[in-house]
């Protein structure tokens, strides 16, 4: 617990330092604003009234008051101006500046960490937490930090004022202190526990909600009775929430009542009684002091409440900053800006040597895998669902490093190359492709593009078999994809999007092309044409296909069958068929129906 506290303090300081580096003016101004805020508050409740009542009791002339009020108004005039300068200029302008700087910092980091960070759920969750509204939360953390510091000073100052007026009055502060630090803390704990217990039910609610409005569930809701199931889930979670609420009912209510009584009633009414006793019975207090002491009492109670709130918030902020800090201080295993030699664009060979790999450090997905590809040839990787084909591609692209063994390019370990340059050797079309909200030409070249690129883009689109569709669009290759920013943006079907992604590979000069199920959403004719075009445009490129449609991989120079965590069969299609192993079995199963007809034909002949 103590260690955690230390941690929280360190994190808060880290946040202040960080914001100071990005935007010192904001940190300084936030501090001054907080300070001025408390000064104004203390002045108003401690001096402003006190002075007036004091003047009245001592029969000061009206001029005295006019001068006094004018001076006070002038002071406020200046303070207010400063506040509003902050609110109207400093805050809006610098918040955006922080958004920009921090955004760039976080994005660069996010793009520099290895892919694993995105695929490891725990890391990813922490990281999205860190990214979520990072700018405002960082500023808020600094704001609360000042709140804690000046809140503490203001609380002490208010006690001193009270003490000055009446030595014993300050003792009444004990009530709100108890209320805040004993009962409010207990309430906080109850709240925390209750939320924790309710979380599971709330998650259920959120889930039902999602199922009920997301398009992907709409069909099933209409065709089946799954709605009833969801309704039941919803009712269950509601019962759960009620039960949790009930569980904390007694403890919560008692603490709440005690907290309010101590924080507000005891101090306030107690003070009134004490004050009026001193004024009326023992006559040791003058009326002006009585007036001030009551308003001072209210003020110090609220200052105290705000101080404890700030402390609690600061604590939460500390936990949040922890995520941010961990993320920024995370040391990349494979940083994207990994330095090394520049690889040659000529591919002689790519080799996997006894490669082992596991995502979780426990179970190997790939074990002792070896394979060799030579430049300018065509390879196919086939295997069952879940055999690890996509993992192999990720290793090849160095999204991950093998846990043991090595991957060689032209005889050198790929770790020796500069990562960016190494990746440039590859053009990939993934199964789970993403299109960006940018023009079609930019989506194909994946960079900013001008008219000069027209030829390349159009050729790539033609080869991918989607040019006809694109030329039908209002702005042709300049049409913006998705409706994110453009009302007239194009939304393409699954098959069309897949073709756009394949066009990326056509437009690139990379030495190696990797196609991961490029035709899964295509009809047979389109599929045939696509493969035809890929082979026709092969030139000197090295090709690697992953496909379940074995007819499309049989022309490869070499087929690798991935199963049982390694390459179990390798050779040309014919060789593998002769081998009569898993590949042959797979191929025959798939071909059975097609072959049946050809047998029929033969018979007919």
């Amino acid at each position: 617990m103590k260690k955690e506290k230390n941690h929280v303090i360190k994190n808060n300081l880290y946040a202040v330092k960080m914001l100071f580096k990005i935007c010192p003016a904001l940190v300084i101004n936030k501090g001054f604003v907080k300070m001025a805020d408390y000064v104004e508050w203390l002045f108003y409740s401690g001096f402003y009234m006190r002075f007036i009542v004091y003047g009245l009791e001592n029969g000061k002339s009206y001029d005295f008051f006019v001068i006094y009020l004018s001076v006070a108004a002038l002071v406020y005039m200046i303070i207010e101006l400063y506040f509003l300068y902050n609110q109207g200029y400093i805050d809006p302008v610098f918040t955006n500046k922080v958004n920009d700087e921090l955004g760039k910092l976080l994005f660069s980091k996010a793009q520099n960490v290895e892919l694993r960070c995105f695929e490891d759920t725990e890391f990813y969750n922490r990281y999205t937490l860190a990214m979520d509204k990072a700018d405002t939360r960082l500023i808020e953390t600094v704001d609360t930090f000042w709140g804690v510091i000046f809140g503490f000073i203001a609380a002490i100052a208010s006690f001193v004022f009270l003490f000055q007026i009446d030595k014993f009055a300050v003792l009444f502060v004990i009530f709100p202190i108890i209320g805040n630090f004993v009962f409010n803390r207990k309430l906080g704990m109850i709240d925390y526990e209750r939320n924790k217990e309710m979380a599971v039910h709330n998650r259920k609610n959120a889930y039902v909600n999602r199922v009920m409005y997301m398009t992907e569930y709409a069909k099933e809701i209409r065709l089946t009775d799954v709605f009833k199931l969801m309704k039941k889930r919803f009712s269950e979670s509601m019962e759960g929430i009620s039960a949790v609420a009930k569980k904390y009912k007694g403890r919560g209510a008692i603490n709440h009542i005690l907290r309010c009584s101590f924080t507000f009633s005891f101090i306030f009414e107690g003070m009134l009684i004490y004050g009026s006793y001193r004024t009326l019975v023992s006559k040791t207090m003058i009326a002006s002091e009585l007036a001030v002491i009551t308003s001072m009492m209210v003020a110090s109670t609220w200052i105290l409440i705000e101080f404890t709130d700030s402390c609690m918030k600061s604590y939460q902020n500390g936990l949040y900053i922890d995520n941010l800090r961990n993320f920024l201080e995370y040391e990349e295993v494979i940083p994207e800006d990994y330095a090394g030699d520049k690889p040659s664009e000529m591919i002689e060979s790519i080799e996997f040597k006894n490669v082992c790999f596991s995502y979780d450090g426990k179970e190997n997905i790939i074990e002792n895998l070896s394979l060799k590809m030579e430049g300018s040839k065509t390879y196919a990787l086939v295997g069952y669902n879940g055999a690890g084909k996509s993992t192999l591609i990720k290793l090849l692209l160095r999204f991950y490093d093998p846990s043991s063994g090595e991957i060689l390019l032209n005889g050198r370990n790929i770790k020796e190359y500069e990562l960016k340059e190494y990746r440039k050797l590859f053009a990939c079309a993934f199964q789970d492709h993403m299109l960006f909200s940018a023009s079609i030409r930019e989506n194909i070249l994946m960079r900013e593009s001008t008219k000069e690129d027209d030829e390349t883009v159009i050729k790539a689109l033609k080869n991918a078999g989607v040019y006809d569709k694109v030329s039908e669009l209002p702005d042709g290759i300049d049409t913006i994809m998705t409706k994110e920013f453009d009302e007239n943006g194009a939304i393409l079907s699954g098959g069309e999007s897949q073709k756009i992604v394949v066009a990326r590979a056509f437009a690139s000069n990379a030495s190696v092309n990797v196609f991961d199920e490029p035709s899964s959403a295509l009809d047979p004719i389109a599929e045939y044409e696509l493969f035809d075009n890929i082979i026709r445009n092969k030139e000197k490129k090295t090709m690697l296909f992953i496909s379940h449609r074995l007819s499309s991989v049989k022309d490869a120079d070499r087929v690798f069958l991935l199963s049982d965590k390694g390459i179990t069969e390798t050779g040309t299609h014919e060789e593998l068929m002769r081998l009569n192993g898993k590949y042959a079995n797979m191929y025959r199963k798939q071909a059975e129906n097609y072959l049946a007809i050809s047998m029929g034909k033969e018979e007919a002949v």
Partner: protein
Amino acid sequence: MKRTISNHIFLWKILFKEAPFYMLYVLYNAFRYQFMIFVEHTLGIRYVLHCAEYHEPFNKALIVVLIILFLTILTFTPDGFFQQYWMQKYKPRLYKALKDRMYAKASELDLSCYDNPEYYNEFVLSVAESEKTVDRFLELLDFAVQGITILISSGIFYLLTDWTGIVFVAVSFFLSLIFNKMLNKLNYDLRLKVNPLERKRNYVSRVMYLRDFAKELRLHPEMKDKLLKEFSEANDIIIKDQKKVSFKRILLMYILRFVLNTLITDALYMAFLLYKVAVLHKLGYSDAIVLAGRTGDLRRSMRYISDIPAKAKENSMYIDKIRSFLAYEPVIDKENGEDVEKGCKSFELKNVSFRYTEESPEILHNISLKVNPGEKIAIVGYNGSGKTTLIKLLMRLYDPTEGEVLYDGKDIKDYDLRKYHDRMGVVFQDFNMYGASLLENVCLDDIEDKDNEELKENVTKALKRSGFSDRLASLENGLDTSVTTEFDEEGVDFSGGESQKVAIARAFFKDADILIMDEPSSALDPIAEYNLNKAMHEAAGDKTVFYISHRLSTTRDADRIIMLEKGRIIEEGSHDELLKKNGKYAEMWHVQASRYEAEAV
């Protein structure tokens, strides 16, 4: 205005029906809160100061203060239960009261509503905002009651002690309204200007941190640079826009906060009060202190009340959406209609044409088709030829724009849709796993009696037929295994292929007369595909089957193959017939089969 009120009454009725006591308490609580502040801080302090100023006996002050203390603690007591129990319990119920209605509506909404982005966005927004709408309404009630309580209590106090205070507050208030309007306009205009830029900014940040984009960005760092540039440009413009309005904004805020607030009600009114006390001697100083202190309250109450129309209007907009959503009458009526007889019956499509919306192009043109009971129909064609749409019409997820679909000689519109759907087992390309037990995931229904052995047996059988047996045996909790890690950390996330098998088991379980399959094997490896096809072949039995696939090897055994092109049936017949015809189907077949054939030869 009228609409705003009627909307809120509509919402009140729903909420009040769900939790009448709670809703009344919400009103009372707002009143209690402000009233007790008034009693404590205005009446209490004034009385004590009075006693001090006019040297009344201590006992009088003591008794009054003790009464106040007693009253406050008394009113705190139910508040403890309100904050710590009722609120926790009833607020979710209030949300649920509204959501139950919305979900029920969502489940019977025409599927076409989902295709209309405008309608769908509104729908998503109203679901997403429904909780906040309730919150805003409760807040509104709270503000209204608080404002009125202060206005009445403090107002009476001012009238009885010194009415001039009201004048100061009123002047400040009405001038504030004018300047506030100007400030709001300024902020609103700015927001309009900045909004698209912020969207751009958010888009970039989403791309940067969503895992879907991670791979692409790593392979194409130039794309990253382009996006970062756009991000910075957007921010630069936002900062420029903010700077541009800052002087005017500060000025307006200054007038509002300092001139109209501090200066008029704090300084000038104070000067006036002091004049009355020190020069005219018409007012005791205890009254002056209390009066000066209360202007803030009075001002606040006016602000509460003056904010209400705008806030109510905003909230009303959301209620409007919810109401119009709830009032939507689905074209496809789910509840009424005739029973559907069990057993295989014939299908007939008569001159069916279809377009998704009035503006969109026609997807199917004048399709006529007769399907005999138990016939196996394969639907093939290019991407975008209308295969899936045709299937959707058969299932009555949509009604045809023209023509009719007959089942057993009757327009399917005449049947009770639920019962009609009960006759169908459907496997889509895009299916979902639900956060429920495996058993429930197969039945897709709320099962009361989970230990029903017969049911369990049927589910197990269905899973076996879809090739899930081995996996089932490996599950510790068998059919009770919770699926997805959505809200059970012990839950199991099945792989794509496994999920597909569960989805297929659903169709087997249903004992349907009609089986509809839309590319069920697209994600499977050849062996899994082969096994699935075999299983489906067996399951089909004497059922009527509709099968969509790009892989012609899986459809060739169909009794009849329907080839669609651009929304028309261009060829129809058995595999052999179509090959003989040597048309488009034959072309497609040869393209796919040639490479396998070459092997055989």
